[in-house]
């Protein structure tokens, strides 16, 4: 157990709590950079996908985990990011370095526009409004066929930076490094936002809107800012996803994707950056695991490979239920508990992470 003595006010908002923490994160980053030398190209492709999902997940995490606003429609903003990125590149001949941040900005503006009327709503109503937007986006993409390609979809060109080409199949390792760099920038920005007054305001709104108001936080404005930042990050992730998928249609970013994003952050652990990464690792690795298990079972029983349609989403659902019931803090929460157990050995008690329950009261009058 390490006890950190805080000798200045800056210690409260330092990026790392102590040097050992900084060391471990640096080590992790180094391993991430060196990963292509350790594993084969297929796994590098999967690792790239993990990072992209983690970026999208962080976007939603900013809203759900940090600000406490539910969104069931974040795939819509992934779509905005992906489509605007490609449209800027094809129709306006912009280079990737310009179109990529612009696509994030576009998604952010879209998010702010959505938030403008919906920030008055809260809880369930906000979830419903975002759900409706997610459904609407699919139809709007079809209606805007001249620029989005409609049902036929749109083709994302290779990423070009100063004449150097990044392609998922041509040079997966370079693409991985590019995505890793973007992920690093996003994580750094995310961490900094949390340390700033804006991030503190987010936490205040999440914990209690009433007391945030009493502390002088402009709740409506804070929610809108949270929406804008969250959608910007998700839009960036969506743009990368577009390049990774190379072809995408109106159905690529459907409601299921929105719910998948939610699954990622809940399974990973709400309110933490680690959670987004843990969740996306689970999400990307699960199909692999299922297919391996399926083959193993098939060869054991001698019945060949069994395919049950819809098995994956069924298992996802079951995992999600399991996590919400038994580990609401997600994988990261489990890791924290295990770590605390060993740090405090033998003084760890079962109720250390217990959450307070509250009794419901309705706002309805009848």
């Amino acid at each position: 157990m390490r006890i950190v003595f805080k000798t200045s006010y800056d210690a409260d908002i330092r990026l790392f709590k102590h040097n050992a923490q900084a060391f471990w994160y640096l080590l992790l980053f180094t391993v991430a950079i060196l990963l292509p030398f350790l594993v084969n190209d297929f796994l590098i492709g999967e690792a790239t996908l993990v990072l992209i999902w983690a970026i999208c997940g962080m976007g939603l995490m900013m809203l759900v985990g940090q600000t406490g606003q539910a969104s069931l429609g974040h795939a819509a903003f992934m779509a905005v990011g992906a489509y605007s990125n490609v449209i800027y590149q094809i129709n306006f001949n912009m280079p990737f370095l310009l179109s990529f941040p612009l696509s994030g900005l576009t998604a952010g503006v879209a998010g702010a526009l959505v938030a403008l009327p919906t920030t008055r709503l809260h809880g369930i109503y906000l979830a419903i409004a975002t759900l409706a937007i997610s459904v609407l986006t699919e139809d709007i993409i079809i209606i805007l066929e001249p620029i989005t390609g409609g049902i036929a979809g749109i083709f994302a060109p290779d990423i070009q930076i100063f004449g150097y080409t990044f392609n998922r199949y041509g040079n997966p390792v370079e693409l991985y490094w590019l995505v890793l760099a973007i992920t690093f920038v996003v994580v750094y920005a995310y961490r900094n936002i949390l340390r700033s007054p804006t991030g503190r305001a987010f936490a205040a709104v999440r914990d209690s809107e009433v007391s945030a108001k009493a502390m002088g936080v402009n709740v409506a404005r804070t929610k809108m800012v949270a929406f804008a930042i969250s959608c910007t990050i998700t839009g960036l992730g969506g743009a990368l996803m577009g390049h990774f998928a190379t072809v995408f249609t109106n159905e690529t970013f459907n409601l299921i994707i929105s719910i998948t994003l939610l699954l990622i952050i809940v399974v990973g652990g709400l309110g933490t950056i680690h959670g987004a990464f843990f969740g996306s690792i689970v999400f990307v690795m699960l199909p692999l695991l299922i297919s391996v298990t399926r083959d193993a079972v098939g060869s054991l029983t001698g019945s060949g490979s069994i395919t049950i349609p819809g098995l994956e989403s069924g298992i996802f659902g079951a995992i999600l239920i399991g996590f919400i019931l038994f580990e609401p803090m997600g994988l990261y929460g489990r890791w924290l508990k295990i770590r605390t157990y060993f740090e405090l050995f033998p003084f760890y008690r079962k109720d250390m992470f217990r959450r307070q329950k509250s009794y419901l009261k309705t706002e309805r009058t009848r």
Partner: protein
Amino acid sequence: MDILQLIVSGLANGCVYGLIALGFVLIYKATEAVNFAQGDFMMLGAFITLGFTNEHYLGLPFWLSVCLAIAIMGMLGYLLDLIVLRRMFGQSQVAVVILTIALGFVIRFIAGAIWGHEPQSLESPIAGVELRFGGLALGMDEIWVIIITVLLTLLLYFFFARTKLGVAMQASSQNQLAAYYMGIPVKRIHSMIWALSGIVATIAGILFASKGSIDPTAGLLGIKAFAAAVIGGFGSLPGALLGGLIVGLVEPFAARYMPAGYSQIFPYLILIIMLIVRPHGILSQIQTKKV
């Protein structure tokens, strides 16, 4: 005549939406939780009936299968609350939302594994019979849907307004702690309301499946019903029906008079406009929280 035809089919569709929305509202009214799996409940109820009555499966008499399905879904709803949702007692609404979404995934998977992913239609005595009034052709199924929905809404409305159990259900949502003090078994009430909404979902499912065909993704219809519930005012039973009728009526007219591609966005467009203009629905029951 043409318009009348559109109105009747719109009303019938709207009643199904309204019935699913009733299921949402029932649970919301008593537990403050929103069951995003309600559409999948409906699908499951329809499939259970189909499994009992269709020649291809068990081939039992229709009305017997209906009773069996209602009993099974009621029990399922009760057990679901007893085993799964009771653990969520006292935790945030959003967690329950995510939980029920996941539940929907699982139900869809189970239904797909048992009954397959092909659309099937329910062999019911009310399907396919037509009544003619002059040039107007009314499906027997459409008339039945409208009558049953109206009766059920009235029944539930009086259940909540007049009976002791109904009032206890409202009390347990309005202030859980106070309800406990008054001697209301809040947890058992929650299980009962889940059973009730399972039953309502089954009735909606049976009506829906005899109007057309059903497959495991039919549960996604729940999203439209959701829009209906919000438009009408979440927490109000007549509101749910009203919202359902509005959505049901708008759809055929939009499909008729608007260019293709625009028609299906209308329910959601109304929903968003509604949320902006009057966030708590037509028959609103909410006043803003004062600090």
